[in-house]
């Protein structure tokens, strides 16, 4: 046997299970009550269609994704992969979804209204019907959420629904749901937009043979690991798609996807690597789309153990990183430099903070102050995601200039994320798009379940809780600003870059939204795309 194709793959980790971080979204989100201009298809269609001419009906679009092989499923609550997410989006709807800045936009939920304490939310559903003609009701919403929260099943969105007290939540009429929360949650709309919180009809279980959703496409056929064929749903509340048919094709190898696209066998290739993107950007045979700010790239320092329990050592490491070099070397230039904060370009991002630059002298000085001359650390990395091993090598060389000896240790690809959670001191880390609030609640609170930097700060926790019980958006933004200033000064994430997500489309494909980080509503959204 020769090399596994994974080794040639540019984004192995993201490809298979990368959705997880990208989509997780425990607890709430950010969207708040910003309803303006988000409802319906008109806004998306018009911005997307700019310069693309008048949308035209008809045709079949074939889209190739990396998939999960024969174990794939159409159960929207079970999905883990990008392919699952794209299919879920075509067949089902969520109550809300993320806009380009990761704020929650209403979808099946027409509007939402919290009580004064922010722990009781009344959600009104829009008029929508499932593919079999039944209306989408409050009972369907509660059934779906109960199914996801089933402790025996461990559906991935279960953690996202954790703030909801489902036993106390009730239907208040056909299209009104009252969600009772365990604590004030100003970003509750993010819960409704979280990955894998699709609404299915009450009692639905047979998803692989007959998935019934309320999404823009109806089910035609499904062969796990190969192909999924869907047909236009003329009755979709957001307007019927332009395409007659949509076929999802599974092609795990990046070379296969670009070849099939160049050969005219498909019209949309998800997830291309930077070299492919550059090679075809100006060649003209296909269209290359770069979705910016899709993948945060970082080194995670464990703040609860030496040497990183001393904030001066963390600051020294912030100054060691030459970010341009890392972006150029590890991401092949397909990305932007980071400023040690998650969520560049997202709602509440603290973009007013000065960009951190490499400063070896200052790093040496800080290390000396901390009594960490001649420091030796082990950097855990793995081929689990694009650029990890390259980033580790580059950082080792940069650290050597500051007198720090970094030993790079390669870990297993399949258990990397679990391995680095509690062990080691320094590791390569990355994350897909999610609201800044979700990033904080999942990874930076004392009781967060995936706290890879072991950032445990009572004051920080208090600020977060305060933000969650603050109704006013501006006040809340100020609190997020304070949290981010603290993280920027002494946090455990050395965020050095944000990678682009690269897609290829045939030249006939129009209406592909470019301002949509992977995992957001307009990413891999085929109901507003047409074939010219």
């Amino acid at each position, binding site marked *: 046997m020769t090399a596994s*194709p994974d080794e040639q793959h540019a984004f192995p980790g993201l490809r298979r299970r990368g959705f997880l971080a990208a989509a997780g979204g425990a607890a709430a989100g950010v969207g708040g009550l910003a309803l303006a201009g988000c409802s319906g298809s008109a806004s998306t269609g018009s911005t997307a269609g700019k310069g693309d001419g008048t949308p035209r009906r008809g045709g079949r679009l074939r889209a190739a994704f990396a998939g999960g092989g024969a174990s794939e499923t159409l159960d929207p609550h079970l999905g883990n992969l990008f392919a699952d997410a794209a299919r879920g989006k075509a067949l089902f709807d969520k109550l809300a979804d993320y806009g380009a800045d990761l704020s929650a936009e209403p979808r099946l939920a027409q509007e939402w209204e919290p009580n004064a304490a922010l722990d009781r939310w009344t959600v009104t559903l829009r008029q929508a019907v499932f593919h079999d003609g039944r209306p989408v009701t409050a009972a369907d919403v509660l059934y779906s959420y109960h199914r996801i929260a089933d402790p025996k099943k461990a559906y991935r969105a279960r953690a996202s629904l954790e703030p909801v007290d489902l036993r106390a939540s009730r239907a208040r009429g056909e299209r009104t749901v009252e969600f009772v929360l365990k604590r004030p949650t100003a970003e509750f709309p993010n819960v409704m937009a979280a990955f894998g919180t699709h609404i299915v009809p009450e009692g639905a279980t047979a998803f692989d043979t007959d998935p019934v959703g309320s999404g823009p496409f109806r089910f035609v056929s499904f062969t796990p690991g190969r192909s999924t064929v869907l047909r236009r749903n003329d009755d979709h509340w957001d307007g019927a798609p332009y395409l007659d048919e949509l076929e999802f094709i599974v092609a795990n190898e990046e070379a296969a996807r670009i070849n099939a696209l160049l050969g005219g066998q498909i019209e949309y290739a998800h997830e291309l690597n930077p070299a492919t993107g550059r090679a075809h950007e100006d060649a003209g045979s296909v269209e290359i789309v770069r979705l910016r700010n899709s993948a945060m790239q970082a080194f995670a320092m464990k703040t609860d153990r030496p040497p990183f329990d001393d904030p001066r050592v963390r600051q020294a490491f912030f100054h060691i990183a030459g970010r341009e070099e890392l972006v150029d070397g590890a991401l092949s230039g397909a990305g932007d430099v980071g400023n040690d904060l998650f969520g560049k370009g997202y709602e509440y991002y603290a973009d007013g903070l000065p960009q951190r630059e490499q400063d070896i002298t200052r790093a040496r000085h800080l290390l000396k102050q901390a009594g960490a001359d001649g420091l030796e650390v082990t950097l855990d990395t793995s081929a689990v995601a694009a650029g990890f091993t390259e980033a580790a090598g580059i950082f080792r060389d940069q650290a050597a200039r500051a007198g720090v000896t970094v030993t790079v240790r390669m870990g297993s690809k399949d258990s990397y994320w679990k391995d680095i959670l509690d062990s080691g001191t320094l590791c390569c880390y990355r994350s897909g798009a999610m609201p800044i609030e979700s990033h904080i609640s999942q990874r930076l609170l004392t009781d967060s379940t995936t706290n890879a930097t072991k950032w445990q700060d009572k004051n920080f926790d208090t600020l977060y809780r305060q933000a969650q019980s603050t109704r006013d958006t501006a006040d809340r933004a100020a609190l997020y600003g304070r949290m981010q200033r603290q993280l920027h000064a002494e946090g455990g994430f050395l965020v050095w870059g944000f990678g682009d997500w690269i897609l290829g489309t045939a030249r006939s494909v129009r209406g592909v939204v470019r301002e949509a980080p992977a995992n957001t509503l307009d990413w891999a959204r085929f109901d507003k795309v047409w074939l010219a």
Partner: protein
Amino acid sequence: MSGPRSWIVRRLLLGVAQTAAVVLLVFALTEALPGDAAVAFAGDQPDPERIAAVREAMGLDRPAHVRLAEWAGGMLHGDFGTSLTSGRPVTGFLADGFGPTLLLATATVLLLVPLGVGLGVLAARREGRLTDRLISSVTLGLYAIPEFALGVLLVSVFALRLGWFPPTAVGYGTDLLAHPAALVLPVLVLLARPVCSLARLVRAGMIDALGAPYTAQATRYGISGVRVRYGHALPNALAPATQQLARTIDWLLCGVIVVEALYVIPGLGTVLMHAVADRDIPVIQGLAVVFAVTTVVLNLGADLVTRRLSPRAGVAA
């Protein structure tokens, strides 16, 4: 002489033992890999509570020997178990993947045998001359190209530039026979290396056989050159080649991963790759059984053919 029958029975019993050993070994190795299906499933969201719940839902919290015994028990009734990650029966996975892989392997072997033997005989007959040197250097060079590189090269020349064949089998599903053009490039890639090793083996064996005393004796008896070459020398030259062929078919059945991935052919290699990544032990075990049985049967067949072609060599086999 105890006869070929008892020999076959002994070989079959040995084969059963070998298969069982492979299954045990594969189970042990998969268990030894870091992480299990629950960890793989959790990916970069390794919430310990969720991993524990998944582990319980998948039955992974039971001890390894219990799981193995349960699986083996089902196996005796022809039940391959169910996939951990999808909950679908393993037999379905195997049946789905088998068709495309078998088709690729068959097409390759059908071309491989005449091509490899023909080139080998040709080179042997022209030993030391230009044809021989040409065949030898081309086969050596071709053998050195990794499948992936060759595959990419063939696609960019024959599919994208010249447009003679489709670049992948995307969208054709398992019905590849209906799209024979999609098979050309994958089969070429699969053919490239075995044809080289086979041709070189046949050439070497043929040169040995042609130089052997019995060939000279046959010639002295006045038997025609053609009969000496193809009736007497070739069978002896083919004996090692047959063994090589059996190994090649093994390799084709389980080693087509690169080709399957590059040309998007949903065969057994693809199933195996995903199953290993997911730590989906029932599927891996099912594949191990299929591969082990195939290997045992093919090698038994090859040994039978070898005995037939060259009875004295068979004693050693």
